[in-house]
């Protein structure tokens, strides 16, 4: 069980109690007509099939093979999404105003939300554990290279690091560099190389 804070003590029944509390809450809310018996499952399903990192991966792959599309994506992420064969909702919840920044040999970008966990839902889905953990949020803004090294990414001192903190309502994400050895690969094959971490700036794309 992830805990970065060994100074705190937790009961052995920590998860059992939380599971019971949330089930008690959800069942009461269904019985009282606040939500339905399907509401939570349909929300979770939406993020499994409609809005997730598979959308961001398709946008990045298209940008890698089409420089003109890349320019449009960097200029207006939401408008570029309209060009794709995506489900309805790319400018929906937590995607109303998205922006993407490009990694190059000279500049490496990382996203963070030091105040909470703001994240572009339509392109990346829901944020991973590490992004929400206060340790990452506290450390990456002051020592991004050290944090990157803990993710296994070594960055030369000559590369400028830019950390993007989502304190207002713009949702940022990262266009990673296309790796060598992928010449001639199809868009679908390129998209399969992408991970959420690569599109958040804490991983490079591996072939």
């Amino acid at each position: 069980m992830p805990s970065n804070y060994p100074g705190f003590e937790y009961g052995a029944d920590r998860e059992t109690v939380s599971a019971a509390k949330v089930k008690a809450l959800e069942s009461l809310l269904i019985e009282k007509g606040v939500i339905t018996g399907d509401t939570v499952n349909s929300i979770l399903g939406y993020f499994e099939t409609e809005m997730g990192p598979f959308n961001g991966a398709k946008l990045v792959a298209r940008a890698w093979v089409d420089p003109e599309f890349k320019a449009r994506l960097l200029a207006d992420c939401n408008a570029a999404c309209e060009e794709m064969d995506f489900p309805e909702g790319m400018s929906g919840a937590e995607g109303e105003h998205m922006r993407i920044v490009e990694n190059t040999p000279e500049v490496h970008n990382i996203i963070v939300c030091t105040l909470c966990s703001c994240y572009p839902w339509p392109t990346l889905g829901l944020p991973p554990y590490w992004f929400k953990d206060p340790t990452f949020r506290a450390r990456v803004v002051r020592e991004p290279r050290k944090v990157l090294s803990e993710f296994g990414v070594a960055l030369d001192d000559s590369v400028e690091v830019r950390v993007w903190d989502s304190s207002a309502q713009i949702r940022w994400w990262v266009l990673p560099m296309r790796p060598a050895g992928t010449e001639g690969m199809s868009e679908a094959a390129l998209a399969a190389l992408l991970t959420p971490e690569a599109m958040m700036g804490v991983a490079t794309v591996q072939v």
Partner: protein
Amino acid sequence: MKLQHNLGGLEGLDPINTETQVFVEPWEQRIFGIHTAMMALSNHLGDSLPDYAIEAVPTEFKSFWTWGHLRMGAEGMHPFDYFRLRYYEKWLGGISGFFISEGYITQEELDARTAELLADSEKAAAPLPSGGAAEIDAQVLKYLQEGDSPKRPLPEPPKFSVGDRVRVKNVSPGDHSRLPGHLKGYTAEVVLVYEGAFTYFFPTEDGIGVPMPVYSLAFKNEEIWPASLTEPNALYYNDIFEVYLEAV
């Protein structure tokens, strides 16, 4: 001052936990779904962009609930609890408390139901109640697809332009703020003036919640933290509401 607003740059922390799962326990999915449904059924959506026919949705939920409310709860916690509890543990506490304070459920019935589930593993494994009005789930899907945009027409021209130096004011955060406290007093360059104006879910004591310009600012790390604690060749960008800024 709240620790929750001042995370940036904190020293003495552990190595990064690089766990990539979104939910590290199955129960976490349920509280995420409940929160998202509350946002999708919030009574303010009749006046939002887009404006939903929220009053016609046959849910018993009649309250105002947004990210702002969830964040305000987390910012109001004891700072040690903020670190001690995992992300969705904070959500579970805050959201349960909200349903009790708004009168949808009582603490007693929540405790009794929880105790029942803890005492009986068959009940704990049993399916949730089924049924409910399909229009509720249709509204939730509509919200996910259409969102709740904070963008509004500019009430007046932005005070600052690209290239200007600005200083982050030392405003008191009150119950809820969108200003990272570790930026207060520091200067930065305006690198982008976002088109239009941005409002917030509700007015805060520190001044957001009416349409105003938002700027992308570039801070130099060595101007915020001592040189011995920073790294070479790093820039820190932040999106900041105009009310938090003054001319240098």
